């Protein structure tokens, strides 16, 4: 693994004002995310032990694996919510883990949705969705609200715009959280077990939203326990165990004919639990 990764081949270390622009230009094709030798430890506990992964633009990849295998940490590292210990992450060729990168700028192009929604409880749905466009992008309020309403209506939430999060069902809250991330017009979406906290009957409405995003060409990394969903939506499925990607294959292959014994063991447990 490349421990001395700091100096990437992407020579553009300067602050990324042009980053969004170059991202847009390259977004049409090519590699969206490139992760090389990523390591992350919390104290003595090494959670990611050398992750290498490439994600093409418009590609949907599902991360599966037991709790604690590193799926969530990987997504949080991608969003720069966790500082990494070694390795590097690049978006369309530009290294975002380099020194001097404006993290806020990077995060605008990568949306993340959490298992526990994390809506702002003191704000209405509309305020939740418009806060970041208004305060991070400087979008004037009327324009931000118009865009927010467009997104809310697209996901069947327009009648909820004045509600506060604690008045919504879990499924509705999670859909609002997705809309809130989409309001920043990200080019990549990271979904961290977004249905794990939901009652079973509410899972479908959230998965439908994700399917629509995939159909719209959104590049996505999805950590999930919903194996059936992963099989449907993913171009590739990565199985993680103990901070490493054990197997990385198209779902048809990984779910029916896993190569690695550890993947087989994991899937057997999932099947025994009736979740595949």
């Amino acid at each position: 693994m490349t421990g001395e990764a700091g100096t990437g081949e992407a020579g553009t270390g300067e602050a990324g004002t042009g980053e969004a622009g170059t991202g847009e230009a390259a977004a049409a094709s090519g590699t969206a995310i490139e992760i090389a030798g990523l390591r992350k430890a919390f104290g003595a506990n090494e959670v990611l032990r050398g992750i290498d992964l490439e994600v093409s633009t418009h590609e949907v990849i599902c991360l599966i694996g037991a709790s604690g295998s590193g799926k969530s940490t990987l997504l949080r590292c991608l969003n720069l919510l966790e500082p990494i210990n070694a390795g590097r992450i690049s978006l369309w060729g530009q290294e975002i883990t380099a020194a001097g990168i404006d993290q806020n700028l990077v995060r605008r192009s990568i949306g993340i949705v959490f298992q526990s929604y994390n809506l702002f409880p003191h704000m209405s749905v509309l305020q939740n969705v418009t806060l970041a466009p208004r305060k991070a992008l400087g979008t004037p309020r009327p324009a931000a609200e118009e865009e927010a309403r467009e997104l809310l209506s697209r996901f069947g939430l327009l009648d909820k715009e004045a509600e506060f999060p604690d008045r919504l069902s879990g499924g509705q809250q999670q859909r609002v959280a997705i809309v809130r991330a989409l309001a920043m017009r990200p080019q990549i979406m990271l979904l961290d077990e977004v249905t794990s906290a939901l009652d079973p009957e509410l899972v479908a409405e959230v998965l439908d939203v994700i399917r629509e995003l995939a159909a719209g060409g959104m590049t996505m990394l999805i950590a999930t326990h919903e194996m059936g969903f992963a099989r449907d939506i993913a171009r590739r499925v990565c199985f993680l165990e103990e901070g490493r990607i054990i197997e990385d294959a198209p779902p048809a292959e990984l779910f029916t004919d896993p190569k690695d014994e550890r993947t087989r063991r994991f899937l057997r447990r999932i099947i025994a639990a009736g979740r595949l």
Partner: protein
Amino acid sequence: MDGSEPDPRAGPFTGFPDASPATIGGAWQPPGSFGAAGRGPRLLSGGGRRATAVSTVSTLVVLGVLVAIFLLAPGSKQVRHVFFNPTDMWQSLIGNPKKGYYSVGEAIWLNIRMFLAAEVLILGLALFIALIRQSVSPVLFPFRVLSLIYVDFFRGVPLLLVLLAIGFGVPALRLPGVSTQSAAIYGVAALVLSYSAYVSEVYRAGLNSVHRSQTAAARSLGLSQSTTLRYVILPQAVRNIIPPLLNDFISLQKDTALVSTLGAIEANGAAQIYSSTVFNYSSYTVAAILFLILTIPLARFTDRLIDRDRRRRLAGAST
């Protein structure tokens, strides 16, 4: 319910297996009443007409006993004359400059003004200190140390000493513009210094009460650290600390009376002048009543907020 009959179940739970629960003290409640007590801090917790009747009777009995003790005490007549004389109470309330004493009723306005000025300044200064203490930047390390020293110092030194130090120390410095202020200004300064130390800790508790996932959610949207603080963390933190904050302000309201030690003619000071002129303490009773009129509404308001907050949290937990 009669508490005189020890419940056999209570023994092992009291921690004093040998003592009969009834002898442990007035705080002991028969286990059967735990359900009613657990319902909440409301003064009259529900329980139907019978409970209301019981509480009414017990209130009347307790009050009656207290009044009887007061009235039957050997010195009762004298005390009533010195502390509760209607004429003196009225005279001190309206004041009489010709006879050399001030109106306590007018002087209370100075307390109100000092309280309001101090409150605004405390809210600002305390937040500033709390934010420095919560900061993580290595650059701010010396300021973190300073704010820690500040909080330790002003929480440790009695307010009265801070008042005296500022009220008599600063004028002695003879700094132009600074040393020629009124006693009320020095008083407000001392109150702000002392209370900001407490209130900054309240703020800190509030900031810590907002879950870290809220910061993560805000930062993940590309919001800067200061925007996150301003729009996501602080509003939630302040909402969580309104009850303890109001608590501190109730105590601030009455601590404005200490400024009389610097010679400010606020309610307590005016009462003092009256009593030393006329040799009757009824003016203090008037001042006390005026302070109660100020603090009780705020206290009830705080109770209501706490109650509302508790109900909201219970409702939130059930969904």
